[in-house]
């Protein structure tokens, strides 16, 4: 499995909080250049897995390798380099509330590069423009923005350092269908243009059908199945079937098929 193409390798990972088991023997591989989905019901350990890959939390046992390096054995300097290569979009944006949108996007550039003020400003504006955020609003504070705009601003901050690996934690949760669709399109576009590797944690079935190349379905702290949406929707596992063949799952699938049809 561990070819040079693997960006993230999670190997027999287990996590326990006291007696509560969050993960049991989880193994996942994400390849370079793909959009990888992590899906599953509420509380199945998706976000914890993401936090462990991002070094925000320690697993109880098992190994995680990012860019071929084991994260548990990293020095401070290694971690810093790794963080620079990754961008993260948190579920609620996590924009710094005392800074304007522009300053939010400038912040990582100021910390990690030695570029001049003008260059940093222009680069930040470019990143903001790439996410489709209206440039008239870049002097606004995060609490003056709507949910969708906040998400775009947060995405601009996540791609500020031109990361090779982008993590999106429930990027479309709480967005209206139009905004969510727009966001999916944006992610797709960025991936195509910039050749990013993207890991999306979501339970938005529309997003899964639309933007994700491969997906791992989680349930009860385990990986129930990994594969393309097409493969998984034909799987026999009852838990996966429940996920795909509920009324919402069917509707999302039909819609996705219709879209593919229309494109042809």
């Amino acid at each position, binding site marked *: 499995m561990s070819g040079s193409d693997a960006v993230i390798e999670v190997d027999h990972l287990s996590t326990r909080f006291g007696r509560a088991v969050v993960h049991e023997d989880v193994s996942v591989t994400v390849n370079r250049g793909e959009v990888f989905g992590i899906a599953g019901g509420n509380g199945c350990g998706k976000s914890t897995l993401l936090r462990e890959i991002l070094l925000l939390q320690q697993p109880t046992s098992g190994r995680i390798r990012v860019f071929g390096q084991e994260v548990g054995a990293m020095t401070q*300097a290694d971690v*810093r*380099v790794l963080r*620079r*290569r990754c961008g993260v979009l948190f579920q609620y944006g996590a924009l710094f*509330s*005392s800074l304007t949108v*522009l300053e939010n996007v400038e912040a990582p550039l100021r910390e*990690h*590069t*030695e*570029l*001049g003020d003008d*260059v940093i*400003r*222009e*680069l930040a*504006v*470019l*990143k903001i*423009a*790439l996410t489709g955020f209206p*440039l*008239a609003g*870049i*002097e606004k*504070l*995060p*609490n*003056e923005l709507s949910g969708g705009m906040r998400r775009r601003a947060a995405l601009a901050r996540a*791609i500020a*350092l*031109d990361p090779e690996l982008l993590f999106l934690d429930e990027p479309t949760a709480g967005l209206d269908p139009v905004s969510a669709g727009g966001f999916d399109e944006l992610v797709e576009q960025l991936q195509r*243009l*910039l*050749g990013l590797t993207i890991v999306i944690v979501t339970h938005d079935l529309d997003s899964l059908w639309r933007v994700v190349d491969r997906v791992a379905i989680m349930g009860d702290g385990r990986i129930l199945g990994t594969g393309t949406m097409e493969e998984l929707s034909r799987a026999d596992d009852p838990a996966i079937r429940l996920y795909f063949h509920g009324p919402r799952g069917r509707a999302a699938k039909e819609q996705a098929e219709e879209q593919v049809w229309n494109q042809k």
Partner: protein
Amino acid sequence: MMGHMDATLTNGAPASLDRLDDRTLSCGGAWTLPCLDGIERRLASLHRPEATAFVCDATRITAMDVSGAWLLRRTLNGLETEGRRVELRGLRPEFAQLLQIVSATAVRPAPAEGGGTDSWLERIGLRAWREAADGLKALAFLGESSAALGQLLVRPPRIRWRALVRSMELDGFNALPIVGLLSFLMGVVIAYQGAEQLRTFGGNIFIVDLVGISLLREIAPLVTAILVAGRSGSAYAAQLGTMKVTEELDAIRTLGLSPMELLVLPKILALVLALPLLTVYADAVGVFGGMLVASSQLHVTFTEFLTRFEDAVALRHFLIGVGKAPVFAVIIALVGCYQGFQIRGGVDDVGRRTTISVVQAIFMVIVVDAFFSVALSWMDL
């Protein structure tokens, strides 16, 4: 600061742009964000070709990301606005695509911040207006809470006993250790300072008057109020502010309940009940501290001290001290809750308003205490 180390994470040499001859520039290296440090300076000092039309050879560019593409575009644009024509050659197709995206993404210069040209007169006026509006809002809050309190007193069953008792525990009972420790120390300090002077005059027994009156009348109520303002006033502001940010206050309103009745009044009532009790406790512990110093430094025994205490310290001193406590309590609770309600939006506003609530509450407590002193001395009390 980490620029040099970071350069190792990318494949290849840092981005470069050099002049080959009069008609050719050559770009090379990795045009990626970690490798761009310093390129600005090299671009600025670049000796530009004389010719009005020249070639930029990009064959040696090994890597490129959005930032690098944008910097290359910016450089070429810069050269073109100087009236030259530049032809880019040899750029790998994937990099050319990036360059295209960057060119297509409209980057207008960021709009200048509005309102930056205010004159000083305008700023003063604006500030004054804001302060006045703030004062009006505070007055409105005072009126609103008084009205709610009045309604509550007419219909006592509506009092939220659970919240009230909880608040008394948090803001009164839990404050006992710190209030006790500090008033004990105040008693010790006052007695020590007085002991030196009284011994020279041989008036050792007057330590009782000194400690008793100053503590009961002024120090204990004031120290208690200041501590509670720091402990509870700030907590009120932070709690209500966070509830406002998380829309819990709106939720309370939509459930047909009043935040005033549910959150503010129990706090005011609890503090009005708890602060006098805390003051009495502070009186006792403080006098005890004075008593210890009196017996060790001035040889005034506990019995002598207490006998003298009955004669020297009139009941009114105690009553005045304890009587001020409810007033302080109302001030602390109102200021804390008011500042909490004033929080708008952001998280850092919670911190700012919490600080303001403590400073304002302590300030107002001391001012009101001064009023009390003046008024009571007029009345010969």
